[in-house]
Structures are given as structure tokens and as C-alpha cells.
């Protein structure tokens, strides 16, 4: 066996298609009942969000006062609210509102938290101390109080709401990122990469980030229902959207005031929120298992 000292290499071929990996991953997620449920919920939400106008049997703003506060019927499958508006159509419409605020808020929180956590965890020392103090300060406020304070000062526009909810989630992302970075930094393979000559940027991008994607993805999935809840909470308290926009929080607050007359608005809204929260949580947990390369539950594994 010889070793040539002047190597003309044939370039290594075969790059795997990224789409195939995602598809395979989704299939693994679906393999467990919890994961399948979670995927179903997310899929359903997306479908409803996209097709809301088509799916809703009625216009969510259409008032029908004689039929107010009814229970389920053939015309209004889930019943009506205090102005006779179809609950089903309003809840469907609410999906868009919820996602339109919640998704950008969580993503923005993720982006900021990721950067803060990366810098704090990797650089350490005083930068880390400052970051931790700031994050603790933000986290010490209940999210809704924080939101109320800021919005009272700056006004309740959709952008402001998104930013304020994002800020409420930044500490969570920053902490997870920071902890993961600190733990990864101690691994021998990071030392090995540095030994090979890799610079900080390469180490962070190729060896740290891929290993924190998993917990961050999980946290994102689990924070989304939280963001929806906060947004609903703000709407419940009167901040945010204007009537007749079918925000779930508004539906809930209107229904709550008249709960003795008809339980249905509160019932359906809470059930929906519960489902969404459960779905995302299950999805998040299943994602966490799937994304650890060492967990191998594929049926054809033999070694």
C-alpha cells in the first residue's frame, strides 16, 4: 500500500439533497403519536391561516343580532357571540391574527436571543456578566406587565406588539443558547477544530450552531403557543386589535363577560388554545428527540 506524495485528488462527490433530509426528518417526527399530533396541529393551523376566507362559512364580521349567544346549530356550527357573529368563522379568522403576531414575535426573539446568547456564551467574562444581568432584568417582569408598560408608553400598534412580545422571549432564547454554547465550548472537538486552525467564525457557524439548532427549534415550537397566549391576553385587556377583528383574546374576553348567558364562546376558544398549545408542545418534544443524531429509532437500524 503506497502513499503518493503528490496527490491529484478526484473531488469528493455526492452531496445529499437538503430537501430529502427535511422530508426524512418529518417522517421520523410523525412516527410517534405525539409527533404526529403535533404535525397535524401545525399543518391544520397553516391550512386554516392560508385558506381562512374560503373555509369560513360566514363573514366573521357579519352581525345577526336575533341569533346572538346561541349554541351550536345547523347555520352556526359552533354557535354565535354576543352580536350574533358565527363563532366558527371568527375563530378561523383568528388563526391568521394569532400567527401574524406570534410568529414574527417569536422569530424576532429567537434572532436577538441567539446573538446575545452566542456572544455571551462564547466570549464570556464581563460581556457574559452584563448579558446575564440584562436578561435577568427582562425576565423578572411578567411578560404581560412588561408588554402593557411598553405599549402604554408607545401605543398599541401591531409592530409594537410584535417587538414587545419578542423582547419577552429574548431571555429564554438567550439562556438556552448561552448554556448550550458554554457546554459545547468545553467539548474536545472544539479544541480539535481550533487545533486544526479553524477560526472563531468557522467554529461558531459549523460546530456550535448546528448543535444548538435542536434545543432552539424545540424552544421556538414551545414558545409559539406562549406568544399566541400573550397576544390574546393583550387583546383580552383591550390592547391591540380593533373590533370587528376576530382576535381570539377578544373573543375570549367578550365571551367571558357574558359567560352566564352562553358558555360557548369561552369553551371553544379555550379548547382551541389548549389544542394549539398541546400540539406545539408535542411537536417540540418530538423534534428534540429526532434532532439528536444519536437517537436512532428507525426500524431498519442494525449494528
Amino acid at each position, binding site marked *: *500500500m*503506497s*502513499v*503518493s*506524495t503528490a*496527490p*491529484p*485528488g*478526484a*473531488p*469528493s462527490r*455526492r452531496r445529499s439533497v437538503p430537501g430529502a433530509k427535511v422530508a426524512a426528518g418529518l417522517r421520523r417526527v410523525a412516527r410517534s403519536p405525539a409527533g404526529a399530533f403535533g404535525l397535524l396541529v401545525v399543518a391544520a393551523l397553516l391550512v386554516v391561516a392560508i385558506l381562512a376566507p374560503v373555509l369560513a362559512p360566514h363573514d366573521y364580521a357579519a352581525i345577526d343580532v336575533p341569533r346572538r349567544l346561541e349554541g351550536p346549530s345547523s347555520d352556526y356550527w359552533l354557535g354565535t357571540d354576543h352580536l350574533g357573529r358565527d363563532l366558527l368563522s371568527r375563530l378561523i379568522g383568528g388563526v391568521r391574527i394569532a400567527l401574524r403576531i406570534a410568529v414574527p414575535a417569536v422569530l424576532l426573539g429567537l434572532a436577538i436571543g441567539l446573538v446575545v446568547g452566542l456572544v455571551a456564551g462564547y466570549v464570556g467574562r464581563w460581556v457574559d456578566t452584563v448579558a446575564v444581568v440584562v436578561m435577568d432584568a427582562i425576565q423578572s417582569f411578567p411578560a404581560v406587565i412588561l408588554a402593557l408598560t411598553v405599549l402604554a408608553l408607545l401605543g398599541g400598534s401591531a409592530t409594537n406588539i410584535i417587538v414587545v412580545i419578542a423582547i419577552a422571549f429574548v431571555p429564554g432564547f438567550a439562556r438556552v443558547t448561552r448554556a448550550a454554547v458554554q457546554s459545547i465550548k468545553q*467539548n*474536545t*472537538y472544539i*479544541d*480539535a*477544530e*481550533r*487545533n*486544526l*486552525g*479553524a*477560526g472563531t467564525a*468557522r467554529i461558531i457557524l*459549523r*460546530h456550535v450552531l*448546528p*448543535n444548538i439548532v435542536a434545543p432552539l427549534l424545540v424552544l421556538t415550537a414551545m414558545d409559539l403557543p406562549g406568544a399566541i397566549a400573550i397576544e390574546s391576553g393583550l387583546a383580552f385587556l383591550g390592547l391591540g386589535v380593533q373590533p370587528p377583528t376576530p382576535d381570539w383574546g377578544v373573543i375570549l374576553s367578550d365571551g367571558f363577560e357574558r359567560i352566564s348567558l352562553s358558555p360557548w364562546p369561552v369553551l371553544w376558544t379555550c379548547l382551541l388554545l389548549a389544542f394549539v398549545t398541546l400540539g406545539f408542545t408535542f411537536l417540540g418534544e418530538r423534534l428534540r428527540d429526532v434532532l439528536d*443524531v*444519536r437517537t436512532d429509532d428507525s426500524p431498519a437500524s442494525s*449494528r
Partner: protein
Amino acid sequence: MTGGPLVTMDAVSTHFNAPSMFDRRPPVRAVEAVDFVVEPGERVALVGESGSGKTTLVRTMLGLTHASAGTVHVAGVNVHESSRRTRRRLRRSAQMIYQDPHASLSPRHRVRALLTEPHRIHRIPAEQQWSVEELLDMVELTDEQADKFPHELSGGQARRVSIARALSLRPKLLVADEPTAGLDVSAASAILNLIKRLSQQMDMAYVMVTHNLNTVTFAADRIAVMYLGTIVENGPVRDVLERPAHPYTQALVDALPEPDPTQRRDDLPLPGEVPSARRPPSGCRFHPRCPIAVDRCTDEVPLLTPIVSADRHAACHLSEHVLEEQPT
């Protein structure tokens, strides 16, 4: 770089201070005033028991750990006083393979990516690169290993992958930290065969850190014995083992269990344990456990001085005595 040693370590010390200001213990003096030289193409075994500082020494050699005192020159570069860029280029001359092969391979990347990464880091032009298949072949692995993740490899395979990674930069010096740890005898021998053959083919020097004395006569030309942060003896490997000039070396050789039931020892080569590197003994660090220690050993640190021949050194006030006392 013209003739002259590949590695020169001059009075190098590495001390580890307490990690926080609440820890008032004295620093760990892992390496203390060590001189160490490696010639181009030379094969050196660095032996010592746990706590001897051998891993810290080689890490300081490569600049992975900061030296508290002294200078280190590798391939003409002053390792600890160079710019980042120079140190980066140094990585192409000197590489290391780690004791735990699985731990040193980034877990989310396949072997293929791990093998090509050094080329990408140093932006080596394509004509000078070895292909993944060639690298795998060099370390006697089949092509099908290329698409595996590190956790899917056996211990021996993971080790070969780390060797291939280090070699892809064609270093002049390879540091192997316990390359046979955790391997069965047959797999360990295969790895040692591989490293030696590669060193011959690529004209590459290596420093092999090991506590397995039985492998050093095969793997190395020269041996350096460390105890509690200092080099107590060095020289041509067979000479040192057959006729040690330091009582610690003698004890190590005597303690090796011979796979020969007709040769059984009754006495104990070395009682006690290695003391803490935070509070090393005064004078000669070995004196509390030394069978022939005298008063001078407690007061005066022995220096590495030539003994027997110009290429052998021992740090012992009584090395002549050690040589005399040996059974023929």
C-alpha cells in the same frame, strides 16, 4: 526552515491558576522548567504516569495551552509570541491526535466533511489536496466509512479518522496523545503500525504520549520520562529501558507485568502515589518515594545532565549509583 531541531522547548513551565478568585489554592504546576527537543523525522515517546504533565507538555508545545514561562519554537516559529496568523500557519506543520477519538470528532458532521475540513480551513488548492478516498485508504479504512457519523464508528475507526484528518495537512510533526487508549491489544498494535509506517512514508516526526512502556521500543527511537511535571530522563529508547539512570525509570520498568509466569516479582517497585502538583515536594520531586534518596535530594533540584553518553540525560544526583546497582 533549514537544518536544526523541529521543536525546541526551553525552560518551559505551565502553571494553572485557580479558576476563580474564591479558590485560594496554589496553582497547579503541571510542567516545571522543561527542556525538550525534537529533531526532524524523529520518533519520540513521552512516558509518565497520570499526573506527570505529559499531556500539558505537548499541548504547550503546540500552543494549545499557554506557557507560563520559557519559550517554544516549532518549525522556526516562536509559538507563544506569534501573531494569530502565524500560529494558524503553524497548524500545517504540527498536528495532534487526541486521546479520546470520538470526543475529538464533531458529532454532527460525517467523516467525509471532517476529512475535507482541514483543506477548507487552510484553503489548500485542489491539486494539492488528497481526496477523501485517498485519505481513507491511507489509514486503512474502506470508502463506505466516508458517509458515517462519528458515533457510528468503532474506537479504532474513529482514531484512524482523526489520524487521517491530522495528516491531510501534511505536518512535519504529529503529536499522538495516548493513541492506543481504550483499544484491544490487536487494534492498538495495528494503530501503532500505521502511525509508524505513515511517519516513515511522509518523513514526519512524532511525539507519542503513552503510559504503555511495552510499546515504546517499537514506536520510538528516543524516550523521555516525565514525573510530576519534569523530565527525569531521556535518551535512546532501548538504552534507557535496559539501563535506566533514574530510579523512577527503574521503577517503571520493574513494575511492568511480564507476560511470563516464570518471571514473577515479589517486591514492590514503587510504593505510594504521585503527590499533588499543587504542592510538589521540595528539591527533587521524586524524593519522597525514591528508594535511594539522600539529604541532598530534599534540598537541591537535580538538573538534566548528560550521563553515559552525549545523547542520554538524567535528572538525578545519584544516577551513577542507579546504573551501578543494576543486575546484569
